[in-house]
């Protein structure tokens, strides 16, 4: 046993020495290429939070050209500690902008950013830049779209019962649900919004059963947030219950019952950040995507025959939120 320990230690040292010789050749980025790295909590194809960022970066790349704009990503970084290592590593490789796409990464960023003053960091979704001049913050006013959806839901519901499936009651998800509830109650006072927080971002089966429960309780409209709701959408479709999506477009999953989606267009704020960085401003500001700046978009499903008066009411809600006459979080 003692021998084993010694040998293992020797071996590790040997491996370390070898590694030490091999490493260290960092490529220096050509200055004209803008390089972005992003760290995300779930997979890039989650049809939700992470995908919205991936899609935004792809959109910018399509616009600027792959030779002018590069981006790399670390997905499924649900371990905060691993994310911190990734952020530091990207920073040391001289990326222009490093996006920490998840509120849980804040503490790590606060620690790492001061070590790389020439690198710009972005943190979402929040409005807090820690007072650092190389950190941008960005947030989605998810409640805005939520409110608009809520208005439509209230008008489309016959039973007056609306079900919400959420992961845990926090952040982006909470904002959306709060806005949604406000929209419903503002439109139809007696309508009831039942929320089900299933305590997980990944339990598709439980999300689906939560949707079943809502339907059993009389809901004829469902909405939900985060990547596990794909389970709930299937249930909605099977039962002919309407669905409202958020974060990314979920229409493709159930074209017959998805009414509309609130789609995040992070490219709106990313472009602003990029131009600031190119003008040597590395941070210190926070950004919002809103209905007003086009970062949030209510995308109607053309395959669903939305009654005109509902569409009109939705548009009115959008206009009201944009001009400030409606507060989506009363």
């Amino acid at each position: 046993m003692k021998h084993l320990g010694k040998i293992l230690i020797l071996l590790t040292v040997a491996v370390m020495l070898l590694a030490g010789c091999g490493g260290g050749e960092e490529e220096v980025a050509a200055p004209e290429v803008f390089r972005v790295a992003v760290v995300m909590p779930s997979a890039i194809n989650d049809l939700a939070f992470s995908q919205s960022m991936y899609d935004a970066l792809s959109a910018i790349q399509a616009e600027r050209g792959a030779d002018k704009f590069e981006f790399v990503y670390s997905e499924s970084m649900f371990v905060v500690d691993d994310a911190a290592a990734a952020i530091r590593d990207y920073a040391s490789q001289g990326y222009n902008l490093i996006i920490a796409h998840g509120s849980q990464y804040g503490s790590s960023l606060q620690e790492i950013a001061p070590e790389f003053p020439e690198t710009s960091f972005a943190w979402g979704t929040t409005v807090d830049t820690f007072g650092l001049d190389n950190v941008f913050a960005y947030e989605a006013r998810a409640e805005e779209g939520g409110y608009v959806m809520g208005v439509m839901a209230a008008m489309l519901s016959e039973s007056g019962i609306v079900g919400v499936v959420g992961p845990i009651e926090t952040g982006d998800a909470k904002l959306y649900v709060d806005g949604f509830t406000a929209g419903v109650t503002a439109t139809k006072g007696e309508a009831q919004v039942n929320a089900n927080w299933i305590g997980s971002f990944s339990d598709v089966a439980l999300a689906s059963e939560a949707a079943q429960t809502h339907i059993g309780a009389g809901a004829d409209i469902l909405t939900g947030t985060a990547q596990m709701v794909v389970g709930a959408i299937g249930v909605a479709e099977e039962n002919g219950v309407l669905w409202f999506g958020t974060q990314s477009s979920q229409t493709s999953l159930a074209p017959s019952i998805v009414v509309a989606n609130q789609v995040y267009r992070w490219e709106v704020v990313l472009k602003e950040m990029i131009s600031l960085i190119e003008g040597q401003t590395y941070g210190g500001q926070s950004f919002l995507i809103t209905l007003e700046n086009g970062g949030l978009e209510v995308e109607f499903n053309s395959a669903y025959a939305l009654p005109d008066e509902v569409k009109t009411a939705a548009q009115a809600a959008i206009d009201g939120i944009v001009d400030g006459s409606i507060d989506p979080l009363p």
Partner: protein
Amino acid sequence: MIGNLFTEAVLVGILASGIRLATPYLYAAIGETFSQRSGVLNLGVEGQMLIGAFAAFFVSFTTGSLWLGLLAAIISGLLMGLAMAFVSINLQAEQGISGIGFYLFGLGLSDLLFQKMLGTVETVSGFRPIYIPYLSDIPIIGDIFFNQNILVYGAYLLVVAAWFVLNKTTIGLKIKAVGESPEAADSLGVSVARVRYFTVILGGGLSGLAGASLSIALLNVFQQNMTSGLGFIAVALVYFGGWRPFAVMGGALLFSMVNSLQLWVQVLNIPIPSDFAVMMPYVLTIIALVITVQRVRPPSALTKPFERGH
């Protein structure tokens, strides 16, 4: 407001969804029952389920045939089971750990295939609830029992079949003997390795089926890590049920009904923090174990590799 729980609609809902939610647990746990009865602890169930779920979904999605999907799930599960069998029977690896390895492998591989072969979340039109003339029309009972899809019925038939195989067939006799006393079985010319290969591979196939029951019957989507710990609960249920198929079913039903109850608690706006509601099934499972004092002994040879003459 607690009173709201005791309405007919809610009780029917809890029972019906409890029966439905128990489906994947049943397939996986019955498969695990077989392998544990023969002395092999397969902790890789979750990984096998994920692979099965993906295979079922992908094949159904591309060919349009749910039955082909089902077949694919079973075959992929069998293959995973074969690998597990080889590692734990021939290589005599520590089963608890190799199981975790298979879990991680299945988790990663299913996700990888999903990203490379599908790219995004898609849906299929899965198995629909079957209308059974008359039975489905019975009030309440019909809603609870006779408004489910074929894989749900299959799961409960499987429980009966498992009981039958374990208690009424020669292979069942061999399985039990090999799990209790491989030396005795070996001395009568029963091949311990062959029996264990059979159960572990069968367990793999059933785990694959459990995955399929999620991806093409209950949920009709595939998403990375969609089982989210379900396979581990299934293993726990085997212990809960004391390695007896009907008791395992009881455990699965209890767990899923409490899970469905907690969803109702939230939907009915009963003022309990959602976190505590989510905790309920786990707490109750422990309490159930404490009050139903366990007198059942695990199979004596569980997790012990067999080698003649040792």
